């Protein structure tokens, strides 16, 4: 009996100390789903406004491209004063007055005042009697900077000689009286009886006199433009010019005219696109587009606005190069108003091509030519290879814009790859975004284990293709607070956890 109790007690002891296998600690691996919020952004149309190319106007977005232009420096304004030689008979003891008719009296420039920057007057005393003591010709209209009139004197020399007119003033400063003839005073003294012809004086001007400032009546004068300043090259996202059509545009030309003559702008705005299409807008010649002179209420500022079918035609070819061609300004003075032109002041201005974002989208595809390089670090490659099973990119998008389309992303390890949905070496992901949605659109892009392998290369190249939905008519892009694309992204990663 006692042995039984002993055995029973030993059994209890065995129970108490019975051995159990306890495995060495080993951390197994497992998969977890990690949800990582990626972004939550609202992209407002109004954010496009940069006050350089994008402006807001009554909640509408205005896109504009602008260029400057400037007239060629006038240098000197040539005016032909005498187109024919003139002569006068010198009579002994006579103080005579006379005048030469100015050829400019019939020309487009009739001066009342001018500052001469270049010019000569030639004279020749011929057939002079030896008894002549002195002879001089005084032009009252030409004065030097001391106010002394131009005097041509006989000094016993014959033959053609010249007087340099540079620095002389022609006429009275501020005068509104147009000078139609060149008055002169002739003084001859000799020992011969009074009235005896003692010689002859010939006057001529071999060419125009150049003025740095003119005042008078200008009825026709061409102010040439420096066209190279007005060339603008426009770059569009790849293919976008095929996919959209701009419905209307407006060309605004602001001109600062420093002259006291009204002008008309001449020339054409020429546009050309990469497909070789050309369009020209001829700037209309009309008093409606008169450029105001500096001396009226406008202070010389004029804004010319051109719009209409021809302007639209120019913009709708989506020109990549725009230039002003054969452009010049012509003085417009049908009422023969007195005015001034100074070569030190240049006519200049800006031209602005403005178009509201009223577009029509076609269903053509846009695809930038260049791929985007994505560099993946060795650490991330290891992480992707060993820990990432699949990835879901869940997007919740509100598109309040009237534009929708199919967005396709192509990935390849070849930097020069050509996107091809049928190429198995490429990873292709596509999603459609509808226009004007008030409800959130759920887009789920999934990358499985095989597809993720693409990102285990050090460099992956991505290209984007957008195919807009055809809007079947123009749509207006406005910039109210309700015009935005809201994107919320959540990355759901199925990751493999293991002891490193």
């Amino acid at each position, binding site marked *: 009996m006692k042995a039984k109790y002993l055995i029973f*007690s030993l059994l209890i002891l065995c129970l108490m100390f019975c051995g159990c296998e306890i495995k060495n600690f080993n951390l197994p691996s497992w998969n977890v*789903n990690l949800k990582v*919020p990626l972004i939550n952004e609202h992209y407002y149309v109004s954010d496009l406004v940069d006050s350089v190319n994008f402006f807001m106007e009554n909640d509408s977005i205005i896109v504009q491209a602008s260029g400057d232009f400037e007239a060629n420096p006038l240098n000197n304004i040539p005016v032909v004063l005498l187109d024919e030689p003139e002569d006068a008979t010198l009579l002994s003891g006579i103080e005579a007055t006379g005048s030469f008719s100015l050829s400019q009296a019939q020309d487009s420039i009739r001066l009342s005042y001018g500052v001469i920057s270049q010019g000569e007057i030639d004279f020749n005393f011929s057939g002079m009697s030896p008894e002549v003591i002195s002879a001089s010709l005084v032009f009252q209209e030409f004065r030097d900077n001391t106010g002394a009139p131009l005097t041509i004197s006989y000094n016993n020399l014959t033959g053609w000689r010249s007087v340099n007119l540079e620095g002389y003033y022609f006429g009275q400063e501020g005068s509104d009286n147009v000078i139609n003839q060149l008055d002169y005073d002739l003084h001859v003294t000799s020992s011969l009886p009074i009235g005896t012809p003692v010689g002859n004086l010939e006057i001529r001007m071999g060419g125009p006199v150049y003025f740095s400032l003119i005042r008078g009546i200008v009825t026709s004068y061409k102010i040439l433009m420096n066209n190279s300043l007005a060339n603008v090259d426009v770059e569009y996202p790849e293919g976008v010019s095929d996919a959209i059509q701009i419905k209307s545009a407006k060309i605004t030309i602001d001109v600062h005219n420093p002259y006291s003559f009204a002008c008309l702008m001449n020339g054409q705005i020429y546009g050309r696109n990469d497909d070789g299409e050309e369009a020209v807008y001829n700037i209309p010649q009309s008093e409606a587009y008169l450029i105001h002179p500096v001396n009226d209420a406008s202070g010389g500022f004029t804004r010319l606005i051109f719009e209409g079918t021809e302007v639209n035609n120019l913009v709708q070819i989506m020109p990549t190069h725009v230039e002003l061609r054969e452009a010049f300004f012509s003085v417009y003075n049908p009422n023969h108003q007195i005015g001034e032109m100074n070569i030190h002041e240049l006519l200049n201005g800006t031209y602005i091509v403005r178009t509201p974002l009223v577009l029509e989208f076609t269903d053509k595809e846009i695809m930038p030519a260049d791929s985007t390089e994505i560099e993946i670090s060795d650490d991330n490659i290891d992480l992707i290879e060993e820990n990432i099973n699949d990835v879901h990119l869940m997007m*919740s998008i509100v598109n309040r814009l009237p534009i929708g389309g199919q967005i396709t992303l192509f990935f390849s390890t070849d930097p020069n790859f050509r996107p091809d949905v049928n190429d198995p070496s490429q990873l292709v992901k596509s999603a459609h975004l509808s226009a004007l949605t008030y409800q959130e659109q759920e887009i789920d892009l999934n990358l499985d284990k095989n597809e993720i392998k693409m990102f285990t290369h050090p460099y992956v190249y991505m290209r984007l293709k957008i195919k807009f939905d055809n809007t079947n008519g123009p749509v207006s892009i406005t910039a109210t607070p309700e015009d935005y694309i809201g994107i919320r992204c*959540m990355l759901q990663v199925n990751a493999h956890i293991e002891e490193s």
Partner: protein
Amino acid sequence: MKKIYFIGIFLAVVCLLPSLQTATSLPFSGSYLMRAQGAEAVYWNPASLNSNYKNFVIPVLNLTGGIFNNAFDLDTYNFFCSRDTLSEKDKARLLSKIDSNLRFKTDENIMLFGMTFGNLALASGTHIAAHGRFDKDYLRIILYGNEETDYFFTKEDNQVEGLVYQDITLGAGNWNISPYFKLPVLPAIKVGASASILIGGAVAETDKFIGTLHSDFDGMQLKQDVYLRTGILGIGTKALLGVESEPLPNLSVGMSLDNIGGFIKWVGENKMYHYNVESDSVFAADLEEDFVTEVDSSWSIGNFTTKIPPELRLGAYYSFRKINVSADYVQGFKASQVTSPIGYFCFGAEFLPLPVLPLQIGYRPGNKDQPWSFSYGIGIRVKPVNLGIGIQSVSSIIPGYKTRGVNFAGNFSIHY
């Protein structure tokens, strides 16, 4: 944050430390109200003190130690460690083991010294009580990821708490109060009382715990706000009242009310540790930015008091020849490091095939706090030596692969 980790690890280690306790109670799964005798009675029921049983508890040789949790057993551990990869089914199996949180707990009474003097006894013991609990959702996130949109973590499911204190207890009993009732049919009703001076060693209390994780299209919001209060060196008191009677031959019943006026006031180096990490509306695209605000600080605080709430214990004991059985019911009144408001039963039995060879068994049904357990013990009772060893198996009838925890105990005392 490192300090908080350190304290957490410390508390976990405390759970594992071999420790002295009234090791004689372990084989009975704590059904010991009516079994405690001699110096041990000052902790259980001082009414039992009497001059017929004198003993001296040997220091150091009364050892008990172990660990348990409410969820995982050895089988689960081996299964976990034997898998190369956890399948969805495996993960579900792991999670199914946990109700709302994963709990570790120890509640030990370490008797360092004890001696009886007639109806008096003087004893000293060290008490180590610690528990930690961690929300099931933490494990869910580790295993499955943050599949849900919202996770909330509260102090109810996430805390670490620990208390180490020593007592010097003087008890007296064996006072028969039945004559005062002047009812001749009344059996003897003995009462006793003990009073303790408590010397606090260390305390750690989770003062505040708030954790949230929100993840959706609006970003990820993370908040973790933890306040942990610690104290070193405290002083306090508590009292225990006990009563027992033998209404029928071989049947005795009793009751005790422990922790009366129990408290420890921490007067030494007291600190509050605060760790806060917050991020709001975080998106991966913004990770370059400084998106997390982190506060890791600690500061000294004034004295504070840890209350030790009362605990009521009812017990019955019946002996018949070579067998005796007992049953206890324990009801705390408030949650604390050492008490629980969730009541529990425990049962014990002893078989004496030989007068010197007690074989013991105990059973404690499970409740929300703790899984069920079985205890076993064997001893040698030869005057003047009383020794024994015991083992407790949690969630398993015998220690094995299904055990969620084990406690070992050894006791040695001299009675005369």
